[in-house]
């Protein structure tokens, strides 16, 4: 879907993005992670040609982005930034309608889409459509920012530290909301973040960048299994590794027949959640239930611990 081929960008002779290549498959979330100055934001802004590369090619659905006029390309690609970037003189509804209006959708279609998105982000259209951005809380502003980016039903969504201004509780909620929306629309998403936890939570794939270079690109488990450089290993965190590994999959695959005492755990929860519950309750095993409460069996501490061993 997005194919980045040996892309380089130089500022004043210095390469801020240095011959980076990777591909983001359709309908997946790729996270660009790295320290500030690693070139991750520049790389993101080259995908919608807010910055044009000096060398290399970026293909979107097989089409070279430089063959499309910049503003037309950007109307096809959703764009959400840190601190939301909402237009302060336009209402929530007008902000969300930005790209559909540029694309000259008819009014009924725009209104329907705005209401649909407000509902989706749990903002009551009657209460919020006519408010100005400064009348919203930080979390609401951020949701309107993402709603605006999704308004014209783009196949691709680019997000630059979209949750950076939110407190940890709101951030977790916003991340889950994004995952739900991605599932619903099948949007291909590229997210820039400096938060490795966010990268592991959101990413189908993770690209680790440092000093303009792409150090490693792969599934989260690949980063844990075989970190390409000491930088990646440090970023992933030697201490956290077993827990991150357990967080990548659900309890469902580890259910064994049998009974157990204690607070049951749902099969859709992560293995990390199950381990935490086992450790906290001091039990050797806990019952597992389906989301509707039907008993499925049990999960044992020993089984879980074996899953946390370094994968080969």
């Amino acid at each position, binding site marked *: 879907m997005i194919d980045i081929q040996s892309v380089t960008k130089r500022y004043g002779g210095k390469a801020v993005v240095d011959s980076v290549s990777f591909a983001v498959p359709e309908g997946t979330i790729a996270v660009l992670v790295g320290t500030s100055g690693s070139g991750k934001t520049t790389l993101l802004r080259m995908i919608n040609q*807010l910055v044009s590369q000096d060398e290399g090619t970026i293909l979107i659905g097989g089409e070279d982005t430089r063959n499309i006029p910049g*503003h037309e390309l950007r109307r096809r690609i959703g764009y959400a930034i840190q601190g939301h970037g909402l237009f302060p*003189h336009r209402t929530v509804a007008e902000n969300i309608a930005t790209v559909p209006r540029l694309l000259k959708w008819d009014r009924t279609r725009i209104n329907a889409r705005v209401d649909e998105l407000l509902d989706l982000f749990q903002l009551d259209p009657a209460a919020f459509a006519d408010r100005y951005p400064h009348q919203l809380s930080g979390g609401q502003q951020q949701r309107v920012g993402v709603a605006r980016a999704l308004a014209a039903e783009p196949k691709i969504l680019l997000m630059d530290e979209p949750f950076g201004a939110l407190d940890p509780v709101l951030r977790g909620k916003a991340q889950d909301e994004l995952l739900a929306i991605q599932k619903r629309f099948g949007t291909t998403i590229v997210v820039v973040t400096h938060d490795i936890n966010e990268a592991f939570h959101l990413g189908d794939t993770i690209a680790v960048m440092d000093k303009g270079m792409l150090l490693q690109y792969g599934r989260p488990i690949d980063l844990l299994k075989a970190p390409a450089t000491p930088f990646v290993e440090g970023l992933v965190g030697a201490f956290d590794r077993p827990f991150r590994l357990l967080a990548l999959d659900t309890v469902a695959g580890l259910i064994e027949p049998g009974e157990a005492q204690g607070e049951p755990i749902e099969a859709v929860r992560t293995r990390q959640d199950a381990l935490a519950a086992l450790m906290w309750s001091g039990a050797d095993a806990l019952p597992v239930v389906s989301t509707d409460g039907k008993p499925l069996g049990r999960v044992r501490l020993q089984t879980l611990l074996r899953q946390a061993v370094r994968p080969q």
Partner: protein
Amino acid sequence: MSLVRLAPRIILLLLVVGFLASPESFDFVFRPLVQANAPAIYNQGDLAALTLLHVRMVFIATLFATIIAVALAILVTRPFGAEFLPLARTVVNIGQTFPPVAVLALAVPAMGFGNGPTLVALFLYALLPIFENTMTALTTVPPNITDAAKGNGMTPIQIFRQIELPLSLPMIVGGIKISTVIGFGTATIGSTVAAKTLGEVIIAGLQSNNLAFILQGALLVAALAILVFDLLSMAERSLMKWKAA
């Protein structure tokens, strides 16, 4: 705006209109200020006509200054016009540093007596506040907002018309307001070179040592300035209702 805040302005407006419609009715107010037998109300011309001419003069000068200053500020804040910024600043600043009397003195030999030199002086004087306010407004639009506009697929012209200009309008109106108020006062000086303004009333008062005339001219100018200031302040506020708490 609440009625309490609006009331003094309405009273002032009614007083001005009432005075211009029938100056003689106000004879009792100004009588104590003049010597016996001297006229208490300006009698060398029509006060209402002079007031209209005064307003027209300021309006025309400010209108042209607005067109030129705003156009100039827009031009020098575009990427292609950035190199003209220092030049534009210098020109506009010269307009402001020249004393209006000096402009009149220089313009009279070229344009003759009458309204012309005063229009030129008012125009030059009005440029700087409008230009500076427009410049400040256009250059302080937060970069993340223009970035979001560009990232959402707006063309440079759309970014200017839909984002930068509406966000800048309140401050531009603020500049026009300052220029207009300055213009109302400065226009009186124009009567020294035979411009038809309320300055005639003040000058007539000075020449015949008639305090009532001086006050009538000065109070009318002051009242007009206050009313126009309030009107433009209201326009400014209505343009930024999105900001109000």
